[in-house]
């Protein structure tokens, strides 16, 4: 069944949209990633124009993140205090990122830089996570039930000022590292046009040492605000949010997110991490191949807006 999308001005299959929304929502609920890095290429693939894909993708991520956060909230998987600190840093970072993006646009080649940063960050994060989680799975197999969970390791982070108790995360650390991480993710998110969950989740696990249990919910909490901001900005600046498209993706997405977050509680933390690592690596490899392979059509078209 075909449906005509008013802003995208294309006609697409209704069930394909529901399916895409569901798939991305599922991953979103499971891993705490917004899914922006997946939905945009998928929408482009079915023929939605790039501007509409980015803006509407952001709108869809808002819905699946809200759905996911509410599911996580019931099992106390959201550290609001940590989320707020990350968010404040993130806002500052987004602002800087938008400036950097504009500067790179003026220089040209912005899409190549976006693709390159995807490859570098996804590759690095994916490989690190894969290595770490594979090792911990292997270790737990070898040592049976023996729990190797490290006690609180004191690092330089614990010597910084402005220490705050993050009760949900069981951390007593300075607000500076999370704020800086939030800012760094904000910069990258604005440049790459994504919510930043796939960077934020590993950063919270490995840099801040937060337990995987609260990472997903806290990341989603942060993503709601980042993507809401993006949606409004796109609606005002380029009128590229397609509400009809967003609605169909959302219907699929919120349902998928519920199943995803349910499954995430059944899996072990290491299993969850290794699956996310594989997903991130797959996207990274896809983009890298696109950059390296000789395209079948060396010319590309884009509409010049009046």
């Amino acid at each position: 069944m075909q449906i005509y999308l008013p802003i995208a001005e294309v006609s697409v299959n209704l069930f394909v949209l529901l399916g895409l929304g569901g798939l991305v929502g599922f991953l979103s609920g499971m891993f705490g990633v917004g899914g922006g890095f997946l939905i945009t290429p998928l929408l482009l693939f079915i023929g939605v124009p790039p501007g509409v894909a980015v803006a509407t993708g952001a709108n869809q991520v808002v819905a699946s993140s809200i759905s996911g956060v509410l599911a996580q909230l019931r099992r106390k998987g959201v550290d609001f205090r940590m989320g707020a600190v990350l968010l404040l840093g993130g806002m500052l970072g987004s602002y800087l990122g938008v400036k950097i993006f504009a500067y790179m646009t003026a220089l040209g080649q912005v899409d190549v830089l976006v693709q390159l940063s995807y490859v570098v960050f996804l590759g690095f994060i994916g490989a690190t996570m894969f290595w770490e989680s594979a090792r911990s799975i292997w270790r737990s197999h070898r040592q049976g039930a023996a729990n190797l969970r490290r006690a609180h390791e004191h690092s330089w982070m614990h010597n910084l000022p402005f220490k705050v108790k993050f009760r949900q995360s069981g951390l007593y650390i300075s607000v500076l590292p999370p704020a800086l991480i939030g800012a760094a993710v904000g910069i990258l998110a604005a440049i790459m046009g994504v919510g930043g969950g796939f960077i934020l989740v590993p950063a919270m696990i490995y840099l801040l040492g937060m337990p995987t249990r609260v990472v997903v919910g806290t990341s989603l909490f942060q993503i709601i605000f980042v993507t809401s901001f993006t949606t409004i900005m796109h609606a005002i600046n380029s009128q590229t949010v397609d509400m009809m498209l967003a609605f169909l993706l959302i219907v699929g997405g919120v349902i998928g997110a519920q199943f995803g977050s349910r499954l995430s509680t059944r899996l072990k933390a290491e299993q969850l991490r290794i699956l996310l690592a594989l997903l991130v690596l797959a996207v990274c490899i896809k983009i890298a191949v696109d950059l390296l392979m000789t395209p079948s059509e060396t010319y590309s078209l884009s509409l010049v807006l009046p």
Partner: protein
Amino acid sequence: MKFAAFIVMIWAGTAVAQTESLVTGVSQDDVQITADFTGSDILVYGAVRRDSPAPASPPLDVIVTLEGPSNVVAVRRKERRLGIWVNGPATEVGDVPSYFATASTGPLEQILLPEEDLRHNIGIDRRVRVTKINADAMDFPKYVQALLRIRAAGGVFSSDPRGVRLAEETLFRADFALPANLVEGDFRVRLFLLRGGKVLDVQEQMIDVRKTGIERQLTLMAHQQPLLYGLLSLLMAGIAGWGASEVFRLLRR
């Protein structure tokens, strides 16, 4: 207007010494894009009006073109630099129709003289024009070819050299299947009557392609009240997210 054109045609066409003109119509002069729009069939028909018997030769030909509203399109060429494919030089091409279909009684290069094509801008390669050339993209004809190739591959540009059925050198019809991926605006139908490659008469018809219902409401709101539209999109996202979460909680009980 028609009369003036008629006079001019007689004056210009004395060499061929004939007075043949077109009487034309389209099956519908508006297309409404609704949410379940899956394309539309347009029938363009007509007859040749003549005062004296038709000459035996050269044969009569008809070309019908249907085109959507035009845009400026940037054509970029990718280049390999340091092993990766990056965007290279770009050229801007203006007057690129969002949709262009040609139907005729034969291949254009056989039934249409180049100078007539030049005068009336009939073929698609005549319709588009390069508006901005990057210094690195001096081989711009290649860019235009690429544009036409990509649009043709996407099904938006097409030409059917057997698309016009002409009966008894008098009645003709051409069928167009407008795709579902339509951009709204004024679609222009142009009909050309030819003999020996020379254009004898030109007629134009307009088809108004418009979104209606919710499609129209959403488009208008997105452009006229962008902030409200954005907030409404978020509200919808919020309600859907919360709603799904509640529904699943109830289901689980």
